[in-house]
């Protein structure tokens, strides 16, 4: 019988969003995996209500940078000095996309580029952030089963009351699934504050039927 993996919301987000800081580890973890993959409606709800907004915010941050370029007095043809000027004076540090836009200018645009081409490429980037996430989410959904918990598991909830309620509910779904499985179940997360740190990992493994916790967070 194959092993099972239960995905916390952050892992789903990390896999779907290439610009998330946990993306590389989540992608590597899920690539080629032959386990049965599970999640739950709470994780899906959090993805739809919170994570999708973060994807849109990242995309919109790139569009805000495009707007800053249009508002500035740039020449049609941009050289290294202009790119340097954009990095220092037009790209705002307060922009959510600052880090990867800076990296883009640094790594990819050291030579000459047409202003219109740059703007068109950045628009494409903003759109790809959304479209790639959409496609990856659909791909992940097609191989993931949503598990619905039976019972409230009040005794475990009380024992793990130090974990935020929404996160704990997702963890309890994983526990519930494990009680219905004969094979080992791993809980994958990018949230060490709730599931790993300060003795939480051992507390969870002690009171639930979860067999292991995989921390995929980049600290």
């Amino acid at each position: 019988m194959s092993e099972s993996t239960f995905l916390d919301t952050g892992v789903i987000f990390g896999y779907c969003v290439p610009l998330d800081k946990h993306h590389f580890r989540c992608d590597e973890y899920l690539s080629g995996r032959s386990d049965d993959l599970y999640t739950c409606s709470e994780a899906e709800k959090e993805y739809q209500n919170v994570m999708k907004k973060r994807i849109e915010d990242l995309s919109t941050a790139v569009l805000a940078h495009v707007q800053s370029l249009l508002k500035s007095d740039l020449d049609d043809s941009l050289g290294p000095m202009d790119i340097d000027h954009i990095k220092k004076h037009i790209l705002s540090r307060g922009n959510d996309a600052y880090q990867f836009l800076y990296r883009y200018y640094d790594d990819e645009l050291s030579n000459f580029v047409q202003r219109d081409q740059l703007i068109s490429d950045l628009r494409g980037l903003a759109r790809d952030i959304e479209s790639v996430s959409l496609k990856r989410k659909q791909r992940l959904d097609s191989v993931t089963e949503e598990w619905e918990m039976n019972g409230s598991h009040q005794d475990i909830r009380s024992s793990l009351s130090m974990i935020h309620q929404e996160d704990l509910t997702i963890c309890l779904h994983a526990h519930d699934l494990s009680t219905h499985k004969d094979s080992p179940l791993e809980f994958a997360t990018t949230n060490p504050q709730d599931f790993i740190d300060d003795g939480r990992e051992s507390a969870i493994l002690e009171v639930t039927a979860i067999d292991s916790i995989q921390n995929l967070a980049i600290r």
Partner: protein
Amino acid sequence: MSASGEDDLDARDYLCYTLLEELEAAQPGRSITRTQFLKLTCIADRRLKDEHDLDIELPRYWYQYGEILNEQPISNSTYTMTSGPWGGKKIQPSPGISKNSFFIPPEISQAIYSVVHGVVSEFANEDADKIKNHQYEKYAPSGFIRRFDEFRSFLNDQDQQNASLADFGRGSLQSPEDEAYELLDELLAEYPVDLYSEMHQLFLRWEDTTRLLIEEGDFDKAESLLEDFWETFSKVELRHRHGQNTPESQKVRWLNERDDEIANLGDRLTEIREDVLFDREPNGILQTVAETDLSEDAI
């Protein structure tokens, strides 16, 4: 100089009443439309300020198609509104109201009559577009609003089936698509981020979504999205930033509506973007800044 008094019918009501009386006389046999009434009162009030330095505290705010009278704080006893044969509203002075119903200092009533007479001479029998254009040209409170109206007119003028490629083929210098992109670039550059900060994020998403729809050749959907966007923009920004003499209770109600308005438009934009973007191939830049191979079918 303030002219609002303790009486039930004040200078603001007198301006509304005089406008209706003058319009009725100037366009016999033609109904006074609600649009005419709501806009011309504002133009008259602005002229009262500009030409007579007289502030009668008329409540008005900028909305979807220009500046309009805020009817809520105005006594509705001076006029009656009924359904017109064209489906809109027609307005008449209320029966039993006359000049004698108002107790206003003569210098104020004379000033009001003078500006109203001028406004009616200029705009009676004119269509709503002419009044709207006058407001946009003369009173638009930001260049962005004017620029937006230009883009709206451009989209309204597009009949994608008949005009686009045919006109281009006849030798127009620019295709409608390219003209649209240029107008959108101008809108982006003109947007005053600090003034309209509440709608900035949605504006950016609306602009790019409109561009996507035009790239797909769907001018009709772009036009309908523009109407939705501007209605939300009017509710969230325009009537707050460019209004005067709005009662506190109404301001609170407007503020309470803001979050829902923003969320509803956000949902519509997300829906359209997901539809359009899902079938598009990535342009490659995301691959260069991401750390994994996005083309690989990883799972």
